[in-house]
């Protein structure tokens, strides 16, 4: 029963990531990213409750602050200045949806079946941690996919945020004993990186009049 909650949340986080990557309207994308972050927060909180690890509550609080409040606010604030429609990605819509579907299924199945190769302990090899871990790897893969195939700077930043979320989920699944200061450091770091990237992107928008990273070709030599 208790495992089901984590498995459901892991699947939810996968679906929201896919939607956030695939949507063409940048505002809706940011909205789905917010939803994804709320699910991430729920996973950490549920994990803390189910595994009776109260130190994780501080972790979920920091996650709430950085991932639910700071990063989406930044994305909304900056996205207001940019055009709301995404620049045409490298792949067409149909192909992209198909590819991403295959990617999610293959990644998830692969990591679920072979989690023993990477999981150093017994707990991580059994449900629900196994599914959580598989979900985490898949979110990481999705983020990387978004980075590689999207040309819009907002989508690129989103891809980066997804990759980081994947790593944080792996951290939760494999090493929840992490000290608070370290965890706060890692989470704050992502927010700062997003801030700097969006700041530079808005400068790029002012100068180039576009948020299409393919336009950044001044230095290709």
């Amino acid at each position: 029963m208790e495992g089901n909650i984590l498995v459901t949340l892991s699947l939810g986080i996968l679906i929201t990531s896919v939607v956030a990557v695939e949507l063409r309207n940048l505002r809706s994308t940011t909205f789905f990213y917010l939803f994804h972050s709320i699910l991430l927060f729920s996973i950490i909180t549920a994990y803390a409750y189910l595994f009776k690890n109260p130190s994780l509550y501080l972790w979920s609080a920091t996650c709430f602050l950085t991932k639910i409040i700071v990063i989406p606010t930044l994305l909304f604030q900056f996205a207001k200045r940019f055009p709301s429609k995404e620049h045409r990605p490298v792949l067409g819509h149909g192909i992209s949806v198909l590819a991403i579907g295959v990617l999610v299924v293959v990644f998830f199945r692969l990591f679920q079946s072979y989690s023993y190769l990477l999981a150093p302990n017994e707990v991580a090899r059994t449900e629900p941690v196994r599914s959580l871990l598989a979900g985490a790897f898949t979110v990481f893969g999705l983020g990387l996919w978004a980075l590689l195939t999207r040309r819009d700077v907002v989508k690129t930043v989103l891809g980066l945020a997804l990759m980081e979320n994947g790593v944080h989920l792996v951290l939760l699944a494999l090493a929840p004993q992490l000290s608070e200061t370290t965890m706060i450091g890692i989470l704050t770091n992502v927010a700062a990186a997003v801030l700097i990237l969006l700041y530079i992107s808005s400068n790029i928008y002012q100068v180039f009049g576009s948020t299409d990273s393919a336009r950044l070709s001044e230095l290709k030599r």
Partner: protein
Amino acid sequence: MSETVSSALPLVLVVLPVLGAVFTALLSLGRVRVPRHSLTLVILVVELALAVRLAATVWSGHRVVAVGEAISVDGLSALMSVLVAFMVTLITIQSGRYMAKEQAKGVFSEGRLALYYSLILLFTGTMMWTVTTNNMLMLFVAMEGSTLATALLVAFYRSRASLEAGYKYVLLVVVGMTFALFGMVLIFAAAVQFRPEGIHALRLTEIGMVAPRIPKNIALLAMAFMTAGFATKAGLVPFHAWLPDAHSEAPTPVSALLSGLIIKLGAYALSRTVTIFAPTYHAVIVFIAILSSASMLVGIFMALVQDDLKRMLAFSSVSQISYVFEGLGLGTYVGIYGGLFHVVNHTIVKALLFMSVGAVMYATGGVRRISRLGGLAKKMPITAFCFFVGALSLGGLPPFNGFVSKFTIFLAIGEERLYWAMAISIVTGLLTLACLVWAAYRVFWRKPQNVEGAPEQSELREVPFSMRFSIVVLALLCILIGVYPHILHPALDSATRAVLAIWGRGVATP
């Protein structure tokens, strides 16, 4: 074994520049006219004095810790912190006139000059934090901090090219470092499981005791991720795409910082983590050797075809940092010694070369294309001499410092019987010599060029003393270390032993 002393000094090293940065920024916000350059310089000189003071304690056989054991300064940290403080000070001395002239030209506003000095101080703080932290994941956080502190410096001019360079720089390095974080998380998770009683799984000083117990598949995957991440930070091929852009579009003193110090953090992190696994897994050594060899060749071939002086130097950094990786990756005493020696030498030489280019750009009004320059030696003999010393040294010619460290690395590779890698590194050395000396000849000794965009010969004159000072000091250091390499031996030996001590071989003699 060394004795552990507790002291607040390492913490001061981290906090002082950060507070200085905040102070400088606040003063400018309040529109108070302050001599920012002098203020920054004073803070940095104090920082340097503190770093030397701390290093003296470490070199006398102690390990200094602060905040419990969260911050730990051993031989390697001491070497790096002195190097950082020394270089940033010299670079700031040169920044004064250079940035003031750029500002006078109207490239950026007065307020942004304040931001410049704030960011330099912030960068110094994050560098110090990176080299003194004893926590594996905090190492990641501090390295990211250093990337973010320099991001706005790369995009400083806010031109099309510099914004593009800044965007690429942050994005690629942050993504690369995310891979490294992934690797660190895997190692941490495994270490928590397999550590012996009483070992703290995140401490860099203790991770070596767990390393051999970590299952092979986890260790190798994590090593691959971490090497890729640190190689991105260091700018190795194929993760180098950000480096030539960032180095060529940043203000020239910042290029010297990036090439001299930032990319060395990748090497530092490698020596603290991946090197520890090298003795257990031979595959790690071969993987790093292949990566470095490819990077050496690509870097130098790209450098050879550049017409832009700064881009040429940037590509040469791609090639030179590979020597460092190769040496460190071997995990032997000689390898690590050579790698760290080359860290010191390359920092000195690359900062010297970039600052000489800065002097050329200052004198010519910003010309940096080799095809437009020529005959500068007559008007700028001191800069010409310094650049030439740097070129010979980077090319690995005796009696300059580059020769000694490169030779040590060749020996270390030979010791491991990786003869193909040795051949590649020797060939790269020769190509570097050709590339740099040929560039020096064209810029300083060939007939002045009569092409569009070439500087007016009659207006050329040697740069002011404050700009010459830094390059002359560095050029003299190149010769001094080349002729008397043993003056660095105590510091390098202590640093090498600090790396070896992590996996319990600190007592072994070379």
